[in-house]
C-alpha cells in the first residue's frame, strides 16, 4: 500500500511540475543548433576566407583582411545569415499561429491568400518596369508586402461575408488564393520575357543588398513574435473550443483576430524579402509538436528558434553546395525538409 501511494505521489508530482513547461534539454539543444548554424553560415561561403580571420573580424580584433573581404563579412554574409534566421523564425511562427487558430496541423502561413497576393504584387512590380530607386529595398519587396496583406484582407472580407466560422475563413482563403494566382498567371503569360525573373522570385531566395532587408523585417518580426508569444496561453485555450475557452477566462474571438493579424504581418514581411519559401511554416511547428509536445507554450518559442536554425542551415547549403553558383533556397528546404519530416512521422508512430 505504501509503495503504491509513494509511486502515485511521485507521478503526480512529476506530472504537475512538468505540465506546460519548456523541456530544458531540448530547448538548450535547439538554441545551440541555432548558434551553431549561424556560426557555420558565417564561416562558409563562396568567398574562401579563413575562419580564424572571420572570427577575429567579428570580435573587432585586427584580422588582416582586405577591404573587400571585410565588406563581404559585414555587408553581405552577416546580414544574409541574420535574414535567414529572421525569415525562418517568422515563417515558423506564422505557421504555428495559423495551426493554432484553425486547429489544423496542416495549416501553413500561405493559407489565407498571403502567398498568392505576394506573388501577384511581385509580378506586377517585375513586369511594370518601374525604376528600382523608389525605395531602398527596390519595388518588388514592397509590392510583395502590400500584395500579401491585400490577399489576407480579401480572404478575411470574403470569409466574413460567408459566415463567421474558421471553416468559412479557410474556404475564403482558398478561393482568394486561386483568384489571385490566376491573375498572376495571366500577367506572366502576357509578359513572357519576364517569366524567368518572376519564377526565380517565386521559388524563394534570400536576396540582400546590405542591411536594408534585415532593417525592414526586424520590426515586423519583433512585433509579431511578441504578440504571438504573449498569446501562447490563448492558443492552448483555443484547443478547447470557444465555450470552454471563454469560461476559463480566455478571449477566443479576439485572440483569433489578433493572431491572424500578427501571423499575416510576419508572413508578409518574410515573403517580401525572400519569395515563397515553402515547407518551413508547416514542417517546423509540426516537428516541434511531434517531438516535444502539443502545448503552444512549447511550440511558439521553440518553432521560432528552430525555424531560424532550419532556414539558416538551408541557406548555408544553398550558398555552398555548388559554389560559386547558388541554388534557390526553396529547393533546399523541400529536399531537406520532406524526408526529415517523413522520418519524424515514422518514428513518432512507433512511439505511440
Amino acid at each position, binding site marked *: 500500500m505504501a509503495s503504491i501511494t509513494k509511486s502515485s505521489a511521485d507521478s503526480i508530482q512529476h506530472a504537475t511540475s512538468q505540465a506546460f513547461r519548456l523541456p530544458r534539454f531540448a530547448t538548450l539543444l535547439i538554441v545551440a543548433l541555432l548558434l551553431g548554424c549561424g556560426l557555420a553560415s558565417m564561416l562558409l*561561403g*563562396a*568567398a*574562401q*576566407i579563413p575562419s580564424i580571420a572571420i572570427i577575429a573580424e567579428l570580435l573587432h580584433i585586427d584580422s588582416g583582411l582586405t*577591404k*573587400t*573581404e571585410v*565588406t*563581404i563579412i559585414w*555587408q*553581405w*554574409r552577416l546580414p544574409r545569415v541574420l535574414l535567414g534566421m529572421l525569415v525562418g523564425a517568422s515563417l515558423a511562427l506564422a505557421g504555428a499561429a495559423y495551426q493554432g487558430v484553425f486547429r489544423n496541423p496542416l495549416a501553413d502561413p500561405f493559407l489565407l491568400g498571403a502567398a498568392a497576393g505576394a506573388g501577384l504584387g511581385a509580378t506586377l512590380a517585375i513586369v511594370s*518596369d*518601374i*525604376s*528600382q*530607386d523608389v525605395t531602398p529595398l*527596390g519595388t518588388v519587396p514592397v509590392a510583395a508586402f502590400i500584395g500579401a496583406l491585400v490577399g489576407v484582407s480579401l480572404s478575411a472580407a470574403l470569409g466574413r461575408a460567408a459566415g463567421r466560422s474558421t471553416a468559412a475563413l479557410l474556404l475564403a482563403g482558398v478561393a482568394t488564393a486561386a483568384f489571385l494566382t490566376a491573375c498572376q498567371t495571366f500577367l506572366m*503569360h502576357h509578359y*513572357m*520575357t519576364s517569366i*524567368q*525573373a518572376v519564377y*526565380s522570385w517565386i521559388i524563394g*531566395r534570400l*536576396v540582400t*543588398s*546590405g542591411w536594408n532587408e534585415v532593417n525592414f523585417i526586424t520590426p515586423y518580426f519583433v512585433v509579431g513574435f511578441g504578440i504571438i508569444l504573449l498569446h501562447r496561453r490563448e492558443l492552448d485555450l483555443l484547443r478547447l473550443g470557444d465555450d470552454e475557452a471563454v469560461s476559463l477566462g480566455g478571449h477566443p474571438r479576439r485572440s483569433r483576430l489578433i493572431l491572424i493579424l500578427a501571423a499575416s504581418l510576419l508572413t508578409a514581411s518574410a515573403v517580401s524579402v525572400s519569395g515563397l519559401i515553402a515547407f518551413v511554416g508547416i514542417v517546423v511547428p509540426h516537428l516541434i509538436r511531434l517531438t516535444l509536445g502539443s502545448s503552444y507554450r512549447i511550440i511558439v518559442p521553440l518553432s521560432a528558434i528552430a525555424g531560424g536554425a532550419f532556414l539558416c542551415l538551408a541557406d548555408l547549403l544553398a*550558398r555552398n553546395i*555548388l*559554389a*560559386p*553558383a*547558388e541554388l534557390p533556397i526553396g529547393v533546399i528546404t523541400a529536399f531537406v525538409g520532406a524526408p526529415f519530416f517523413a522520418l519524424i512521422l515514422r518514428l513518432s508512430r512507433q512511439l505511440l
Partner: protein
Amino acid sequence: MNLKHHIWYCLCISFTIMTMSVSSWADIAQRIISLSPSATEILFAIGAGKQVVAVDNRSNYPPQAPVMKLSAYQPSLEAIVSYKPDTVVITFDVIGIKAGLQTMGVNVVHHTAATSLDDMYRQIAELGAVSGHQAEAAQLSEQIRTDLAQAMEQIPILDDPLRIYHELDAAYYSVSSASFLGQIYQQMGLINIADAADRHNSGYPQLSVEYILQINPQLIVITDQSGYNRADVLRRPGWQFLDASRQGRIIQVNADIASRWGPRIVEFVRLIVANIQP
C-alpha cells in the same frame, strides 16, 4: 551576220537564265513570317525584307520590319496562318506549332538559339537559301567575320587577360562560356568569371555575390532592361572596390544587341572592345 549571232546568243542566254530562275522560283520563299528577332534582323540584312510579311512583337529592329500582334512564346496558329505565309522562322517549338504549321503546308525553319558563332553563320546561310539570297547571305557572313576580326584586333595584348562579369539581372544571373555571348567573350580572350559556377554547362548560372567580390572582375557588363544602372551597381556595398568600378569599366549595353545572334553582334563587340582599351 555578227549582229544576228550576238542577238541570238543574248536571247538564248536570257531565256536560259529566266527558265532557271522560274524553276527555282518555286523554292524561294515569298511570304516569310519571322518569330525570332535575330532572324528578322538577318533577313532584312540580306535583302529579303520585301519577302517578310509579318514579324513577332519583339522584333523591333530594323524599324521598317512589319511588327504584328504575333507572340513567339504563345504562338497562335490561326493568327500566323492568317498572313498566308509559305515559310515561318521559329525559335521555340511550343504547343506543337511546328507540326501544326507543317500540316498546313507551311515550311518551318526551326532556328534554336545559337550557342556559337558557327551556329549563327549556319543560320544566316540557311535563311539566305530559303529566301533566295544566298549570295547576300554569304556576303553578310563574310562582312561579319571581317568586322569581328577587325574589332578584335583592337584588343590589347595583356599579360593577364581581363576578368569579365556579365550580369543579366539583380539576382546575379550571368552567362558562361556555354552560351553565345560567353563564346564571344572567350574569342575575345577574356576570362569569364561565371565559368567556375557552371560545371553543368547550363549557360546561365546564378552567382554568389561573395564570389563576385572576391574574384574582382575588371569588366562588368549590365543591360539596360533590368531596371538599374551603373550608379546603382556602384552603390552596392563593397562594389566600389572592384577593379571594374575603379577603372570605370562598368558598361551598360542595349539588351537587344546583347541577346540576339545577328549582324548587330558586331556593334556589341565594338562596344566591349572600346572599353577594354587602357
